[in-house]
């Protein structure tokens, strides 16, 4: 019986101390971010491996998500004779919800896992301690450029995802299914608000970018330095990022669009 309570206590303490370590880690990284501007080459290399290499998966999924929205939306809206609002439906769902959330999930799978594995392996092979021995701060040299790159890439990838999704919806709705092109765009333009919808979507994506990079980098930095530890940390990154994205999305939506 006591053993049972001991287990609960251990788990609670462990998760709280992890949360504390993660918070200190985030503060250190944010402090170190300024020094990245002294060496922009580091940031550029990370923008390439985090942003540019995620470009393909984001644009192709955006195209297909938009096409599916156009197809499904057309079948449902045509029951009510409201095919003209297809553009609004596609754009509103992409800009507000699907764009930020799906591109964040893809980003966590594509870039977040890679970040954790990279940092975790650096720790396992004692490269990070090696840097410290040479009086190079690994947080400044390794972590901060990756964090900034995630922070910058995420909104870019999200806007790309949403824009290409709207074009995908147009390909299916207008070109294949024959919705009038004028009403596709005009219904969209009349009802999508720049500040209310687009800016809020971009804010969501910035929040997701920070959270994913934070989780991925911390899991890598905090990993148990064995091969099994790295594999577990990579799994945890994807799972925790997915939880964080979906949970935060609900909270952000409630704050932005709801009247809570």
């Amino acid at each position, binding site marked *: 019986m006591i053993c049972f309570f001991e287990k609960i206590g251990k788990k609670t303490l462990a998760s709280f101390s992890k949360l504390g370590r993660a918070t200190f880690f985030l503060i250190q990284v944010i402090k170190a971010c300024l020094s990245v501007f002294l060496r922009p080459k580091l940031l*550029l*290399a990370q*923008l*390439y491996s985090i*942003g*540019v290499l995620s*470009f393909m998966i984001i644009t192709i999924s955006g195209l297909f998500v938009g096409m599916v929205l156009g197809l499904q939306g057309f079948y449902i809206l045509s029951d*009510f004779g*409201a095919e003209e609002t297809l553009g609004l439906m596609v*754009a509103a769902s992409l*800009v507000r919800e699907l764009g930020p959330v799906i591109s964040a999930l893809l980003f966590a799978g594509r870039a977040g896992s890679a970040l954790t594995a990279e940092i975790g392996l650096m720790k396992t092979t004692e490269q990070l301690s090696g840097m410290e021995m040479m009086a190079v701060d690994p947080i400044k040299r390794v972590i901060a450029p990756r964090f900034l790159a995630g922070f*910058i*890439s995420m*909104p*870019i*990838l999200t*806007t*790309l995802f*949403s*824009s*290409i999704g*709207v074009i995908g919806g147009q390909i299916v709705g207008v070109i294949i299914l024959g919705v009038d092109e004028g009403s596709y*765009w005009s219904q*969209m*333009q*009349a009802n*999508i*608000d*720049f500040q209310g*919808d*687009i800016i809020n979507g*971009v804010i969501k994506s910035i929040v997701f970018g920070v959270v994913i990079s934070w989780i991925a980098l911390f899991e890598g930095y905090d990993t148990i330095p064995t091969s099994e530890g790295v594999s577990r940390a990579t799994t945890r990154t994807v799972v925790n990022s997915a939880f964080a994205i979906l949970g935060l999305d609900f909270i952000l939506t409630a704050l932005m669009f709801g009247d809570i």
Partner: protein
Amino acid sequence: MQNTKIQDTLVGLFVASGIVAFFFMAMQISNLSPFSHEKVYTLKAHFENSGGLKVKSPVSIAGVRIGRVRKISVDKDSYDSVVEMDINSEYILPDDTTASIFTAGLLGEQYISLEPGGSNEMIKPNGVIDITQSAIVMEEMIGQFLFKDPSQE
């Protein structure tokens, strides 16, 4: 050296495509048009019932949109609905203009339609439109239809 050059170019293209996509969203999707920067003036109208009218609903003359609803509130004395609308300052209306609330289509959104009269006096900014016609509430119409006394016809 050649390699980093390609990398730099690709990063540049990536950031530029993000900016292009953002402008595409602003201009093409949300139509961040000069309309919001145009000069507008405010008119008020009292309606007995403003139905499903919402903030940002269109205000139109002869089917052409010339403004948007800015605010809807209840008059504390008469319990009427007070609708404030922003009208594009290009359009000046005579003071016997009629404001009616119509529905676009059977299930569509409600909008205010203005019909200018023949008066020579114009409404000043922040003026009030006196002649109004309320929204048609479907339940009231059905109620009247159901409980109409057939012997009166």
